[in-house]
């Protein structure tokens, strides 16, 4: 069994426990052990792109350094954590000024310079497990189900830092859907924003954005929509006004692997 450092992040411990629990049980069934580093901190939810922001980048560097110390790649599931951690890792490897300031503050035994490999859970499935191997382990295929993959903004962009997939014509979630026996639905809004944190103060804008995503998926005949992001799930469910069912991709994964009931016991 191969072991990876696993960073759940704040929301997977609270409002998105399903996203976490199904990710863990499925990984185990696929021969992957996920271990949390000690004393991890919230990533902050959004990467602060400004060059003169250092403190807001430290928690992500601490997580990256913890994975480096354990000499294991780092896995995240939440789209926001994945985005923050990968952008931090990309910038610290290229921006000497930022790296110097971060390391002056942290005083690690060895300065951190972007050494850790970061995988989103979907990349783990694609690049470590392999979608063909996943397919071979599926016991409850989603046969005949038309499933819309919702990437949103945080999984793919900025693509030079996240390096996950083609930012305009991605396939990783569609390949995942095929591996669990479903039929992927391609729709125009799959990589456009759901409104994100604007729900805090402008429900109308959140409704407009999330409604556009749901309507676009439904117009293409989707039976359901899947996401990796707790905030996308919230906006699509609560703000869109649509009745299209929304699930975390890990829930479908666990169900396909025959683990869902065990998870719920």
């Amino acid at each position, binding site marked *: 069994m191969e072991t990876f450092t696993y960073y759940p992040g704040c929301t997977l411990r609270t409002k998105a426990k399903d996203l976490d629990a199904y990710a863990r049980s499925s990984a185990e069934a696929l021969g992957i052990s996920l271990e949390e580093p000690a004393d991890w901190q919230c990533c902050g939810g959004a990467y602060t*792109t400004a060059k003169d922001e250092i403190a807001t980048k430290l928690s992500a560097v601490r997580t990256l350094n913890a994975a480096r110390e354990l000499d294991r790649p780092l896995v995240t599931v939440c789209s926001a954590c994945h985005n923050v951690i990968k952008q931090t890792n990309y910038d610290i490897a290229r921006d000497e000024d930022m790296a110097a300031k971060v390391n002056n503050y942290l005083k690690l035994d060895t300065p951190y310079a972007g050494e850790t490999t970061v995988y989103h859970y979907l990349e783990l499935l694609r690049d470590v497990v392999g979608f063909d191997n996943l397919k071979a382990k599926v016991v409850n295929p989603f046969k005949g189900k038309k499933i819309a993959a919702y990437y949103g903004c945080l999984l793919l*962009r900025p693509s030079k830092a996240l390096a996950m997939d083609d930012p305009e014509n991605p396939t990783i979630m569609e390949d995942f859907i095929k591996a669990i026996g479903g039929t992927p639905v391609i729709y125009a809004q799959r990589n456009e924003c759901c409104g994100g*944190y604007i729900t805090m*103060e402008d429900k109308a804008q959140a409704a407009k954005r999330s409604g556009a995503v749901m309507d676009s998926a439904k117009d293409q005949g989707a039976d359901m929509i899947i996401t990796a992001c707790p905030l996308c799930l919230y906006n699509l469910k609560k703000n869109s006004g649509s009745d299209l069912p929304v699930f975390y991709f890990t829930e479908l994964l666990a169900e396909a692997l025959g683990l869902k009931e065990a998870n719920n016991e």
Partner: protein
Amino acid sequence: MNKNLQEQIIRSSGVNVLKCMRCGKCSGTCPSYGEMEYHPHQFVYMVEKGNIEPLLNSESLYKCLTCFACVERCPRGVEPAKVVEAVRLAAVRQQGNNHLVPTQIPGMLDEDLPQQAIVTAFRKYAK
């Protein structure tokens, strides 16, 4: 024109605003276009010209969703969202100018609102 403020914002953003060729693709792809008084291409242009005060006082600062669509799709690699962020920071870093304060949060909560929304909003709206 406040030359020092302009230089600070350009340095903080890391963006070369002179690369912009005014094609407007950033604003065309912005999911908040309809909610903004000043659009992404205007942020780039107005910072280039040093016309920053109107931006500092505009609600447009808080309509950017940080979705990176403009960053990804700019044919010149200008990265307009980084300019918006630098101007927003110049606004909220001023004493008493936070756009969101903790006492507002209880009124915004519902049983499903993910923590991610709250921490992200604080990253964007407050210092």
